[in-house]
């Protein structure tokens, strides 16, 4: 477009511009501090409405009282003074959504913070939205492959499921979520990682890792850092799921990780106490259950009439000294469709990921497992359960009968097989092959500490000579001939 054209275009725009007298509803700040403000006036203010403070600072009205309105401030509240004029905007807090947010690092308001320029999208979605109803959902039936053997085999996750990852600090909760995101490459999944109240250095490291593994191509990172106001930590998960809903509405599958919801609950507690809402158990406000239930209810598996998209949620909860009976952990456990327990003891024993398979469950994921995986994983679950039972007993007894000894040996090998280093997700067909081999006793003569090395060699061998068999398994085929073939391959490898 030439300069003249631009000028003509501008002229047209300017002459078409209608001047109007704007009517604004305003209020006056009567109290401000700690990220919240109390205002008089604003008579017809809505709940959750955005308010504009002087200097373009935004706030969200939370408490509508008889005489005053209480609001949380999204930004630098130090600049707001008593007596300042506050304007209503008539808008509910919204974030930009669309393809443009993919591959970016944004804050809780959807503004870019990765220095790659502003995000310009056509559409904005309000961050609070009612979850899809019963009639628009369908049962979970397609798996999410996390690439982690212990999870895919024994605690399977389906698309549209909400699976809690729970454990003490430093047990590898984030590692599981990040591995799951990395493994979504080429699986037609969009991923959203919401970092709530985390150290910026940790987020930077995660983003670097995702970039290194090529996962940023389909991932958005929403960050509310430890130094951001509590209001940002409070809204970040809603902002994340709103961005996910855009894709789900278009019929795409999305994986969203909330890391972690404990910190969101803390932020909400802080805001609630400052707004003088009555505290309840552990000083959390009465509606802290609703805080998480309305968020996680937005994870869904939509049926064909509604586009068939899905949002799989992996919320993370950090416990203190393995206390899962605290308020927030029990709440979130009851909301989600299962949980993955991570334990410090296992972590230091060298079992990483430190998943306690015995108490971890997935309430709906079983239906989503592929047939080969379902068949081979059933037996190792049993082997592991028997192993755990015998393990304690075997410490006292020196003489064990052959059968018990066999079960113990098999169990130890299964536990060893479930170990997996970070950032190395495995394909489902590889998982099936190696679990099949251990399960059928082909690794029984291998020293326990060499299991992983042998597994690697075995998989290299299978990939080299029997690629077609793996392809069949990855397509979900499983019948007697495949079993026979697999057995043949194992025997061939043993020679």
């Amino acid at each position, binding site marked *: 477009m030439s300069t003249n054209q631009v000028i003509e275009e*501008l002229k047209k*725009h*300017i002459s078409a*511009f209608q*001047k*109007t*007298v*704007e*009517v*604004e*509803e*305003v*209020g006056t700040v009567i109290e401000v501090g700690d990220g919240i403000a109390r205002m008089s*006036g*604003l*008579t017809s203010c809505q709940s959750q409405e955005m308010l504009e403070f002087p200097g373009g600072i935004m706030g969200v009205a939370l408490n509508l009282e*008889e*005489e005053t309105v209480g609001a949380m401030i999204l930004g630098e509240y130090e600049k707001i003074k008593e007596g300042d*004029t506050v*304007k209503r905007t008539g808008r509910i807090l919204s974030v930009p959504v669309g393809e443009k947010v993919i591959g970016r690092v944004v804050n809780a308001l959807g503004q870019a913070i990765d220095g790659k320029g502003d995000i310009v999208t056509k559409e904005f979605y309000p961050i609070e939205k009612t979850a899809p109803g019963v009639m628009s959902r369908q049962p979970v039936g397609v798996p999410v492959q996390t690439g982690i053997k212990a999870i895919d085999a024994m605690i399977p996750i389906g698309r549209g499921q909400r699976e809690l990852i729970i454990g003490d600090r430093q047990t590898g909760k984030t590692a599981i979520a990040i591995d799951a995101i990395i493994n979504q490459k080429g699986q037609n999944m969009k991923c959203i990682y919401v970092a709530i109240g985390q150290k910026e250095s940790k987020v930077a490291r995660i983003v670097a890792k995702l970039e290194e593994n090529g996962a940023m191509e389909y991932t958005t990172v929403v960050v509310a850092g430890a130094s951001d106001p509590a209001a940002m930590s409070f809204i970040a998960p809603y902002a994340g799921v709103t961005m996910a809903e855009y894709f789900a509405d278009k019929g795409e599958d999305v994986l969203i990780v909330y890391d972690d919801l404990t910190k969101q609950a803390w932020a909400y507690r802080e805001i609630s106490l400052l707004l003088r809402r009555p505290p309840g158990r552990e000083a959390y406000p009465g509606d802290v259950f609703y805080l998480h239930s309305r968020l996680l209810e937005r994870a869904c598996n939509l049926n064909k009439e509604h586009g068939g998209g899905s949002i799989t949620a992996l919320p993370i909860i950090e416990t203190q000294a393995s206390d899962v009976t605290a308020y927030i952990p029990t709440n979130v456990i009851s909301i989600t469709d299962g949980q993955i327990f991570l334990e410090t003891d296992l972590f230091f024993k060298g079992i990483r990921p430190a998943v306690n398979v015995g108490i971890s469950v997935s309430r709906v994921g079983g239906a989503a497992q592929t047939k080969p995986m379902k068949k081979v994983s059933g037996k190792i679950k049993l082997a592991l359960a028997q192993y755990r039972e015998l393990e304690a007993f075997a410490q006292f007894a020196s003489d064990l009968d052959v059968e018990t000894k066999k079960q113990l040996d098999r169990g130890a090998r299964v536990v060893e097989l479930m170990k997996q280093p970070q950032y190395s997700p495995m394909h489902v067909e590889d998982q099936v092959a190696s679990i099949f081999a251990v399960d059928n006793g082909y690794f029984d003569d291998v020293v326990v500490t060499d299991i992983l090395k042998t597994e690697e060699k075995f998989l290299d061998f299978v990939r080299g000579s029997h690629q077609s068999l793996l392809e069949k398994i990855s397509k979900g085929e499983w019948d007697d001939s495949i079993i026979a073939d697999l057995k043949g391959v194992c025997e061939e490898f043993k020679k």
Partner: protein
Amino acid sequence: MKISNKQFAEALYELTIGLNASDLDIVLKNFVGLLAKKHKIKQTNNIIAEFETILKKKQGIVELEVTSARDLDSEIIKKIKESFGKEVFVQEKIDKNLIGGIRVKIEDKILDASVKTQLTNLKKSLTI
């Protein structure tokens, strides 16, 4: 139950309406007594402010705050007054940032007809 300043002011207004001077003295004395009993003496100034707004509302007095970029001549002020009601008090303010036009504040509303806001709106309409 906590009693708000507004409720005190409303009570005072309803008690004092149409009283003669001697009765007024008694009512006021009792009212101050009540405030002391309810530990509201500190709130007196706020209650008086609330009382004034109630009084103005009941008597149909409108208070305006007119902000403009330059001094307005009395003719314009008169016109503004006429368009808002019978008894109108106008407080004038000068704000060079407006560039031109006026901005009228009435209770919790602002009627904005300033050049600055028009320009901001124009900018918005051009950027999208």
